[in-house]
């Protein structure tokens, strides 16, 4: 069917898009020399992309089930297998890059501490960065809690209006 073809194609394109996004992020991870916060940021992005990729592959699998012809269903299923394998190899690549860059950051920090005369200044800077990060984390948490509460209030308002 023409319409499902379009959907299949779009889904495939999105899968490819997320797959390449992940590969690019893994490349960034490999080159990451920066502070640990940058590593955490990159990891969060990769996790998000993986999540999206998993959902898209599930959608693709469902599209396979929805095909009229058995032959097409088999074809799409084998493509799903292929996408899943790609995803697994991406996952292994991500783990390797993650580990490697964490080890290199640790090593650099250790060297800096052993040889750095201005380490005190750097440490103060890092503490300031750490403090800034903690403050922004706390603010984010507070914001999410207040959002949750606002949603609650709205829902109860709606309930009230529908009852009243």
């Amino acid at each position, binding site marked *: 069917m023409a319409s*499902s073809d379009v*959907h299949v194609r779009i889904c495939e394109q999105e899968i490819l898009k997320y797959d390449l996004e992940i590969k690019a992020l893994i490349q960034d991870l490999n080159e990451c020399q920066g502070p640990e916060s940058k*590593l955490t940021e990159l*990891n969060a992005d990769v*996790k998000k992309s993986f999540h999206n990729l998993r959902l898209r592959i*599930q959608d693709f699998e*469902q*599209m396979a*089930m*929805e*095909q*009229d*012809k*058995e*032959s097409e269903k088999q074809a799409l299923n084998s493509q799903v297998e292929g996408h899943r394998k790609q995803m*697994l190899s991406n*996952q*292994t690549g*991500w*783990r*390797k890059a*993650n*580990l490697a860059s*964490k*080890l290199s950051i640790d090593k650099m*920090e*250790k060297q800096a*501490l*052993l040889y750095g*005369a201005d*380490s*005190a200044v750097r*440490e*103060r800077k*890092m*503490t300031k960065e*750490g403090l800034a990060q903690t403050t922004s984390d706390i603010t984010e948490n507070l914001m999410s809690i207040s959002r*949750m509460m606002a*949603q*609650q209030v709205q*829902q109860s308002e709606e309930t009230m209006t529908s009852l009243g």
Partner: protein
Amino acid sequence: MAAPTTTVQTMNSLTDTLLKPIYANSQGMDSVSADSGTLQDYLLNFMEKEVGSDLKSLKNVGHLLEKLREENSVLEEQVLTDASSVPPKVSAALSAAEEASCSVEDLLQREALVSKRLQQHLQDAQPWMDKLDQTLHKVNTIERHVKYLRCLQHIEELSAAVQQCLMTSSVWEAIRAVDSMAALDAGLNQSGCSNLQGFLQETLHFWHKIIKDRLTTDFEKILIQLHWPFIAPPIQTLTPTANGQEISSQLELLVSQLLALQNSDDLISQRALASCQVVPAIQPASPAPPPSQAPPLCLPIQIMLLPLSKRFRYHFYGNRQTNTLSKPEWYLTQVLMWIGNSKTFLEERIQPILDRSGATTSAMVELCRGLLSLVQEKVASDASRLLYDDALFCHLVEEVLQFEKELRGNHSFPAVLPGLLHLLLEDAILQKWLTVEKKMAVEKMDAMLSSEGAWSSQYKDISDMDELKAPDCAETFMTLLQVITERYRSLPCPSAQLKFLGLQRELVDDFRIRLTQVMKEESRCPLGARYCAILNAVNYISTILGDWGDNVFFLQLQQAAVSLGEEGVLGGLGVMEVGRLASLEGSLFEGLLALLDRLKGDMMGRLLEWTMREITEKVRPYGQDRWLSLPPQQDQSTMTLSSSACPMMLCVRDRLLNLHQVLSFSLFQMAWQGLAERLDNVLYQEVVLSNHFSEGGAAQLQFDMTRNLFPLFGHYCKRPENFFKHVKEACILLSLSVGSAILLRNLLKDSMEEEARGGAAAAAGDPPPESALNELGVYCLAPCDVLILLNLRASWPGQ
């Protein structure tokens, strides 16, 4: 043309004779076979060159043979001989060899002569050598005596110099002299002159002590003036004190002098430690930890530490109220406060002086190190006494972790220097910690599983926030694991961390077993809320453990486990699995995930089984409806759902909605697809295959399915009918127009007979039956099934 052929024949026979022996010897003689190969190549090239592909050039074979014969004879001359004479070349070689051996003998004779003369000479010279030896020996001894005395004189000079300098208060020179004494001492380290060494050491010690005491008292006076130690946070005085300038300069002087004294001080203190001569003034009750391998603190800081250390021992040792095992936070916080309070003073006044004198140490780090050694002693002794009290032990561990975090974080204590955590790695303490963690965790697990709201999700009312619909107990459990991770994350030893990881894996397994137990209790009503909550819990834990497998902290542990070959982690795993762990394809949680998946599969299966049981009961009356006798409907638009289908539809609709609400999203996907598959089978068996259908009956069935059942599932997918392929295609076949049905039946019958006769059905040029079926939209059912279905139609012409 006879001649060329015979010549060729001769050449061939020659070649054969040449090659044959070579071939005969070619067993295992690679070089020879190579030779035969090259020989063949040579011959081939030769033939090509001379003859090529031009048959006419065979005329030249005669010339060729002549030429070869000549060459052959020349060679023969060189090698073959008459019986009498020796071939010239060989004889030349022989004579050359003879000449060489003659000259060698000659040389040997000459050599013998020369060496004899040499020996003679040496023998003659021997007595003179002996005499010379003795004299030189005497000279050496005298030289050494002179050195000794000179050394002694040097020491006395230095000693006098120090005395002079001290009397004239030129401390710098005194220190320099003491320094050179220390250098001399270090130089004499390997010497066997114990008396000299002893004398030097005593002298050094004597002068060093005098200078150090003088500097120490002066320094302490200055410190008191500067309000050291800062046991309360320093008050910023904006008005400079009257003699501020003088104090600063004196401070600078004293600190730099003390720094200059460092070498000799280190030497003396190390020697003291090594021989255990010095007993610390106030002995703590428990055995002190072994002397640190770390370099000793720099001298000014050592002196600055004295008042703090005195206060520490006063408050936290002995029979004071402040010295309690149950309140480790008192001394830990106290030390942190001291560090915090001293920060400004050290950074602004002491560090610049250190920098100016070229010392590469950081005053803050040194102070921390000094205070840490006090704390380490105390913690070590306390920990060993708390091994029998769980609650207090826990408290100590928590406080130590907290202290470490603050030390590294707020005070930027470098990660390469040991803090307190290595104390917790000591065997007995680590074991106790693990035991207590496990005990606490198990208690918490008991509590969380038996609490009121264990199986409800706390985000129940916030529907869009919660994809996983995790019940409270699962969330609490994962939080518990997370908290344990935070505790052992900063331990400096991977094998200790791996022990904690092992504990966490045990806990997950334990929780899984508990979940299985609760599930068995609920297994009689898998459609209930609690069963679904358990299923959600399993899914939730699987998801989070899957995430942890990607977490860099656990990846580091994974690598450490593989490289250390940890039995606790790798025991029981095959080579393949260890390889997967090493290449980061697998994760440490795979085993647990597999078990959880199996549980999930079991539970899902049971859930679907029970749901289908309910639904199947309701399908029966639908299957027993009067499909055969239904009149054909005049009008499509007035068709309604068969009343016998209503209970079944109601059941399916309600179940689907229920599952959608209680199950997490991914589980629900699994559930409705599983349900659809089973329902498809049941309907096909109980309704379609068990009945015959009139035209009206077929139409009604089609309506019921396509306009009622499939749209129920259309909520969750675009082509719900493709999840019911058997029913869908059966409907198509049952609702075929009579003409198409007859044609199809005939086509299928013919092709099946062809096949039965074993002939190639396609040979007749007919299209295969599958393409006919495909045209009608039937892809899943096989031709034999289709025939059966067609025979269920009741509306054949002539009936």
